[in-house]
C-alpha cells in the first residue's frame, strides 16, 4: 500500500533560502495556537508599516533542523476584505505589499467542525497557484460532535497534502512539519467553473492585470475573481492601487451587469460554494444527530435576559477587583524599585544637571508610566481570556443594542469598558473592530472613561472639598459615581456626535460569528499578554521618555539660586512662568497659576497633579495620607486673600479632569494606533476644549448660585 502523498518522498528542501510559509485561516479556527505550536517562542511581533495590523513572523524547524519562516496572517473569512486585517491578508497573499514578499507556500488551517464555511477562504487561496498545505484542526471536537472528516477524501478531492491536527495538544504538528519541509509540493488539481455570464469579464480583467499591473498570470486570475466580490473597497496603506485601465474595465463591466440585472458577486460566491459542497459531501459524514452542544447549554444562561446581564456584571466586577487588588503589589514594587534606582544613580553620579536629567527626568518620567504596567498587563490578560474562551463575542452580542443607539456596534463595548481601568489597553483592543470609522470613534472617546490614574486626583479633591477631617463614605462614593457617570455620558454623547458628523458612515454591521466556547489556552493567552505589553512599551516608550524629559526641563530650568526651596524653584521655572501665562485662560474656571503648573505637569499622567501640588504648596503627601497636602491646599489663598480651593473650585477641577486629555501615554498610543498625529491632536483639542467649557459653566454657574 502506498504511503499518503505527504509522507512518501520526503526530501528536506535543499535550497539555501529558507522557505516562507504564510499561515491563513478564519478567525476562531485555532490559527494562533497552531502558530505558537509551530514556532514556539521564536516569533517576532510588529506592525505592517502604515497600518495598525499586527505582523507576526516566526521560525519553525523541520525534523532535520532546517529553519522554515512562517508568517501568521490576520484571520480572515474571505479575501474580499471587509476590514484592515483582512485587507492585509489579501495584500500579502497577492504580493501587493512592498514590505512583505509574497509567500512561497501557503498553510491553510480550517476548523473540522465547520468545514464548509472554512473552505471558502481555502477555495480562494487555491486560485493563487501556490503550493498549499491544508491543516484540518479540531479533529477531536469534530469527532465528539459526531462528524467524521475523511482526510484521505479531502486529499483526493483537492490534490494537496491534508494534515489532521489538534493544535491545542500538538497532535499532527510533526506530520505538518514533515509536509512543510518537502522540497516539492503538488499544486492543487481542484478545478471549478467560473459562472458563464461573468467568465468574459474575468478573462478581460486578468489580461489587463497582467499587462497593465504586471501581475503573473495565475495571480492575475485570482485577483480578477476577487475584484468582482471585493471591488477593492477596503484599502490599507502599503498596498499598490489598481492601474487605471483595470479599474475602468471593472467599472464598465459593473455598469453593464447592473443594466442587465446580473448578480455578479453572488453568482461567484454561489459557484464557489457549489464546488465546496461537493468536496464536503465526499469528505464529511454526520454520524447521528448530536444533541445540544455544551456551548448551546452555556449560552442559554450567558445570553439569558436575566442571567446574561448578571454574568456580564459578575465578569466585569471580577475584572475590576482583580485589577485593583492584584496590581497593587507589583505597583508598589515598581514604585520602590524606581525610587531605589533613582537613589542609586544619585549616589553614583556627581551632583549636577546631568544627574537630575537622569533621575528626575528620565527615571521618574518612565517610572510614572511603567507603574501602570501591571494594570495594563492584567487587562490584556483578561481581554485575551475573553477572546480565547469565546465570551467576548457574547458580550458584544448582548451589548450591541445599547451600543447601536450611539451608532457603534457591540464590539466597542469591551474596549470602552477596559478604559475604566486604563485607556491604553482599551485603545489597543479596538483592533477587533472591523469598521475603521467605528474603530476611530471608539479610540476618540475611550479616554473619557474615568481611568485609575484619575483616582488620586478625585480623592485629593474630595478630601479638600468636604469640611472635616474624615470624608463620609457615602459622600465620597456619591461624588465618585457622579464623575464616572459624567465621563461615561460624555463618551457616549461624543460617540453619537462623531458618528453623525465627522466620521459619518454606513450603520455598522453586526455580522459576527459566535464561536463555540473553548477552554482558554493559557500559554497562548499569556504570550499574547506579554506581546501586547511589550508592544506598548516599545511603541510608546520613546514618546513618553521624550515628553517626560521636556516636562522635567520645564520644571527644572531656569535654575533658581542654590538656597532656593523646591517650591521657589518650581515657581520661577519655565513651568511656573507658563502657569502665570496660563492664568488668564484658567482664571474664569477659578484656577490660579499654581493650579496651572499642576495642569501642565500632569500632562505626563493625571496622578502627577497630586505630587506637583505637593511641591507647589510645599507639603509632600506621604503615600496614601493626603492630610498635610489637604491642609496646605485649604490654606492656599489668592493674592487678595480669598481662599483658592473653595469647594466649588475643587469640584470644577474634578470636572476638568474627567474630560481633559491629560495623559502622554494615551497620546502616544493613539498616535501609533491611528498612524498619524492628526487624531491625537484632534483628541487633545476636543477633550481639553470640552473640559474648559464644562468647567467654565460649572464654576460660573456655581458662583451665580452663590457657592
Amino acid at each position, binding site marked *: 500500500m502506498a504511503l499518503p502523498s505527504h509522507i512518501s518522498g520526503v526530501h528536506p528542501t535543499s535550497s539555501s533560502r529558507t522557505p516562507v510559509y504564510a499561515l491563513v485561516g478564519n478567525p476562531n479556527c485555532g490559527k494562533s495556537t497552531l502558530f505558537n505550536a509551530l514556532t514556539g517562542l521564536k516569533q517576532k511581533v510588529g506592525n505592517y508599516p502604515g497600518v495598525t495590523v499586527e505582523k507576526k513572523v516566526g521560525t519553525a524547524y523541520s525534523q532535520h533542523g532546517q529553519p522554515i519562516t512562517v508568517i501568521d496572517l490576520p484571520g480572515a*473569512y*474571505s479575501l*474580499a476584505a*471587509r476590514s484592515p486585517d483582512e485587507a492585509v491578508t489579501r495584500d500579502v497573499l497577492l504580493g501587493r505589499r512592498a514590505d512583505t514578499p509574497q509567500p512561497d507556500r501557503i498553510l491553510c488551517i480550517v476548523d473540522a*467542525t*465547520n*468545514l*464548509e*464555511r472554512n473552505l*471558502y477562504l481555502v477555495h480562494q487561496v487555491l486560485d493563487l497557484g501556490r503550493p498549499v498545505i491544508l491543516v484540518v484542526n479540531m479533529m477531536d471536537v469534530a469527532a465528539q460532535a459526531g462528524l467524521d472528516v475523511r482526510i484521505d477524501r479531502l486529499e483526493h478531492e483537492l490534490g494537496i497534502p491534508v494534515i489532521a491536527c489538534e493544535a491545542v495538544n500538538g497532535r499532527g504538528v510533526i506530520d505538518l512539519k514533515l509536509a512543510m519541509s518537502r522540497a516539492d509540493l503538488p499544486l492543487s488539481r481542484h478545478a471549478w467553473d467560473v459562472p458563464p455570464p461573468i467568465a468574459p469579464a474575468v478573462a478581460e480583467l486578468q489580461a489587463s492585470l497582467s499587462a497593465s499591473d504586471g501581475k503573473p498570470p495565475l495571480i492575475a486570475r485570482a485577483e480578477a475573481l476577487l475584484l468582482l*466580490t471585493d471591488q477593492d*473597497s477596503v484599502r490599507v496603506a502599503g498596498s499598490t492601487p489598481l492601474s487605471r485601465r483595470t479599474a475602468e474595465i471593472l467599472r464598465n463591466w459593473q455598469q453593464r451587469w447592473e443594466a442587465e440585472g446580473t*448578480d455578479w*458577486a*453572488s453568482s461567484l*460566491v*454561489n459557484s464557489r*460554494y457549489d464546488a465546496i459542497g461537493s468536496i464536503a459531501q465526499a469528505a464529511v459524514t454526520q454520524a447521528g444527530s448530536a444533541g445540544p452542544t455544551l*456551548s*448551546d447549554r452555556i*449560552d442559554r444562561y450567558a*445570553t*439569558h*435576559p436575566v442571567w*446574561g*446581564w448578571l454574568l456580564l456584571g459578575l465578569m466585569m466586577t471580577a475584572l475590576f477587583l482583580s485589577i485593583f487588588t492584584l496590581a497593587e503589589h507589583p505597583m508598589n514594587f515598581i514604585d520602590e524599585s524606581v525610587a531605589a534606582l533613582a537613589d542609586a544613580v544619585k549616589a553614583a553620579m556627581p551632583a549636577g544637571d546631568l544627574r537630575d536629567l537622569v533621575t528626575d527626568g528620565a527615571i521618574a518620567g518612565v517610572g510614572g508610566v511603567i507603574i501602570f504596567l501591571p494594570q495594563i498587563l492584567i487587562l490584556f490578560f483578561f481581554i485575551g481570556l475573553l477572546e480565547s474562551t469565546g465570551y467576548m*463575542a457574547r458580550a458584544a*452580542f*448582548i451589548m*450591541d*443594542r*445599547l451600543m*447601536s443607539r450611539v451608532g457603534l456596534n*457591540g464590539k466597542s463595548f469591551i474596549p470602552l469598558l477596559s478604559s475604566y481601568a486604563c485607556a491604553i489597553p482599551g485603545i489597543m483592543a479596538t483592533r477587533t473592530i472591523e469598521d475603521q470609522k467605528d474603530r476611530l470613534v471608539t479610540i476618540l472617546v475611550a479616554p473619557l472613561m474615568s481611568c485609575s490614574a484619575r483616582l488620586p486626583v478625585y480623592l485629593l479633591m474630595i478630601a479638600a472639598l468636604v469640611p472635616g477631617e474624615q470624608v463620609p463614605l457615602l459622600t465620597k462614593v456619591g461624588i465618585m459615581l457622579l464623575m464616572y457617570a459624567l465621563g461615561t455620558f460624555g463618551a457616549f454623547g461624543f460617540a453619537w456626535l462623531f458618528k453623525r458628523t465627522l466620521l459619518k458612515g*454606513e*450603520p455598522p*454591521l*453586526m*455580522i*459576527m*460569528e*459566535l*464561536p*463555540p466556547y473553548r477552554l482558554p489556552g493559557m500559554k497562548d493567552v499569556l504570550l499574547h499578554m506579554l506581546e501586547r505589553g511589550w508592544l506598548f512599551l516599545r511603541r510608546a516608550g520613546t514618546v513618553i521618555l521624550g515628553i517626560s524629559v521636556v516636562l522635567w526641563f520645564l520644571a527644572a530650568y531656569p535654575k533658581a539660586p542654590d538656597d532656593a526651596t523646591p517650591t521657589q524653584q518650581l515657581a520661577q521655572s519655565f513651568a511656573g512662568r507658563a502657569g502665570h501665562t496660563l492664568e488668564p485662560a484658567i482664571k474664569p474656571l477659578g484656577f490660579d497659576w499654581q493650579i496651572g503648573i499642576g495642569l501642565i505637569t500632569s500632562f505626563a499622567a493625571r496622578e502627577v497633579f497630586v505630587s506637583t501640588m505637593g511641591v507647589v504648596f510645599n507639603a509632600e503627601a506621604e503615600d496614601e495620607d493626603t492630610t498635610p497636602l489637604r491642609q496646605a491646599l485649604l490654606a492656599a489663598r489668592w493674592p487678595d486673600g480669598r481662599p483658592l480651593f473653595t469647594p466649588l473650585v475643587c469640584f470644577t477641577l474634578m470636572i476638568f479632569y474627567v474630560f481633559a486629555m491629560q495623559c502622554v501615554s494615551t497620546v502616544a498610543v493613539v498616535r501609533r494606533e491611528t498612524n498619524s498625529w492628526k487624531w491625537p491632536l484632534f483628541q487633545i483639542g476636543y477633550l481639553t476644549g470640552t473640559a474648559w467649557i464644562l468647567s467654565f459653566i460649572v464654576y460660573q454657574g456655581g458662583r451665580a448660585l452663590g457657592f
Partner: protein
Amino acid sequence: MKLSELAVGASAVIRELPKSGTAFVRLREMGMLAGTRVSLVRVAPLGDPIEVKLRGYHLSLRKSEAEHVLVDPVT
C-alpha cells in the same frame, strides 16, 4: 417570510438575499445562500441582534439586515 420574523427554534430555507450591499455579499461569503438551511437560535436580551445557526456554526446579525432576507419556513 422574512428571516427576522422567524420564531426562536424554528428552521427555514433561505429564498432570496438582496443583490447589492456589502452586508449581503459578506453574508453570502459566510455561507448564507439561497437554498441554505438556517435556524433561529435566539434573540439578544434587548431584542436585537439575532443569532442564527447555519452550516454547523452560529452567526449573529442585526434585524435591520435580517428583514431583507426572505426565507421559506420548514416545518
